[in-house]
């Protein structure tokens, strides 16, 4: 262990090194994409989805499962089955609607990232039951937040114009199913 010379990090290669082996997880990028999701009104950059990574989405899915479990519902099978079916359906729809080629990893990645507000809603469900008026309002808010940011990222990545609401509607259906799992 001699010299600690600073090595130049290319932006896309600022990976996480353990034992001099790169894990391939880029925390910078995950954080950037999360920030994009959290602010649904800021227009998204079309290039953020250039490399698709599934680390963030898998993390969020596991977090959703954990919060659901803490609220007393062990619905892991439904979460996984639902997300797989919905990803496939969304991929088919987007490949038919857009003129550019779509990849399945991109769709799964975007949908997984935009699951973050739903994780927040189910975290609230741990502490107080959502089966009331306030719970419905919160669920609707979460759904619209998720679907707006998902459609925003899809629109900017695939350069579809005039179709944001059309893309947001199936996303809202999907996140509505997750909300149903959370609330009931």
């Amino acid at each position, binding site marked *: 262990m001699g010299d600690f010379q600073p090595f130049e990090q290319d932006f896309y290669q600022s990976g996480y090194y353990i034992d001099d082996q790169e894990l391939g997880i880029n925390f910078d990028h995950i954080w950037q994409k999360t920030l994009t999701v959290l602010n649904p009104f800021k227009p998204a950059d079309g290039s953020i989805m250039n*490399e698709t990574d599934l680390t963030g989405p898998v993390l969020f899915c596991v977090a959703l499962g954990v919060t659901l479990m803490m609220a007393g519902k062990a619905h892991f099978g439904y979460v996984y089955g639902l997300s797989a079916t919905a990803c496939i359906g969304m991929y088919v*729809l987007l490949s038919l609607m857009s003129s*550019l080629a779509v990849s399945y990893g991109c769709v799964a990645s975007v949908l997984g990232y935009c699951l973050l507000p739903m994780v927040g809603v189910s975290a609230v469900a741990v502490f107080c039951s959502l089966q009331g008026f306030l719970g419905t309002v919160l669920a609707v808010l979460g759904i619209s937040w998720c679907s707006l940011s998902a459609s925003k990222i899809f629109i900017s990545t695939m350069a579809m114009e*005039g179709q944001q609401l059309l893309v947001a509607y199936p996303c809202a*259906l999907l996140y509505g199913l997750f909300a*149903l799992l959370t609330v009931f």
Partner: protein
Amino acid sequence: MIRQHQFPSRQKAQAQTTATTTMLPMVASTATHSQMVSLDTFPSSSVSEGLEQLALRLEVDVCRDVLPLYGESMKAPLTAGKCCQETKVEEPNMRMGNSSMDGTDGSQLFEDTSGVAAGPQAGYSNQQAGLQAAGFSGQSLLSDPMSNLAMAYGSSLASQGRKWWTRMDLQNGVKRLAIYKVKLDRFIPISKLKYYFAVDTVYVGKKLGLLVFPYMHENWEVSYQQDTPVAPRFDVNAPDLYIPAMAFITYVLVAGLALGTQNKFSPELLGVQASSALVWLIMEVLAVLLSLYLVTVNTDLTTIDLLAFSGYKYVGMIVGVVSGLLFGRPAYYLSLLWCCAAIFVFMIRTLRLKLLSEAAAEGRQVRGSRNQLRMYLTMSIAGAQPSSCSGSPTT
């Protein structure tokens, strides 16, 4: 060979997309026989035009499907000045006719194998880089089967140690892509399906308004552009598949929700609902197809059009179920009645233009049993919608 004789008579009657799908095998098969084999002896300008004509007839998009075969070494479009408006390929000053020039700069289109071995290194490395850059904006390899095929073909050529591309490679590439497209189109008509999903928000809004209130709309004709119907984006009267698909899924969810609020919510209900609704839909489309076949009416309604029309009634059903959930039973029946009437009128006005002859569609009285049969057919198709609407198993 049989297809060649069928062409002249059918082509006039159906100037449709079905013509191209029957044309493709013929073109692909003649490509192996007649002109492609001896193209090396043709002058290069007509080679390029012939290849482009072939690509056009095969509906192979040269920019998207053939260019990635050659990566950055193929910077020239097949005819100078055309094509590739979307991609940022700069137009070079070299035409394809200069195939006898050497390829030191690597931006050569192709040259003869019998030619001089000129500048192989630059060409080869360009091709390698081009092949890697040929993926569409960093999508994964599983994305687009056409570009996968193109890349596989290109890399198979590169792995053979070939240093530059020839006309034969271009021909083979186009041929492979054409055959692949023919095979794919036999199973799933993807290009046809894409037409039905070319919608935007304004169209969807107007169409939903039409489905619920069709009484004020006057012009129900679908506009055409050189024998092909205009995309739904530009014409409210054109059928689409986005609304039926979304309406079907929403109906399954909402109906499951309605049934679930009476009992406890369980996800198995959703599966049952989805399957039964799907079965209803398929049976209805089959019945309409059968009746159209029996009446032997000459129409340009495709199966997908019928699917779209059958799917439009789910919008009314959703309105009914939602208002029933919100406002109780009387609201459910009232809104169901309104939506049944609306979809009945909508179907009649839409199908009238497609099934009846022009004279009857304009409203003049036309005698003849044939037209009466068509009128009955239209009415029964339109009438089937509300009946299956109200016969749906909810509440």
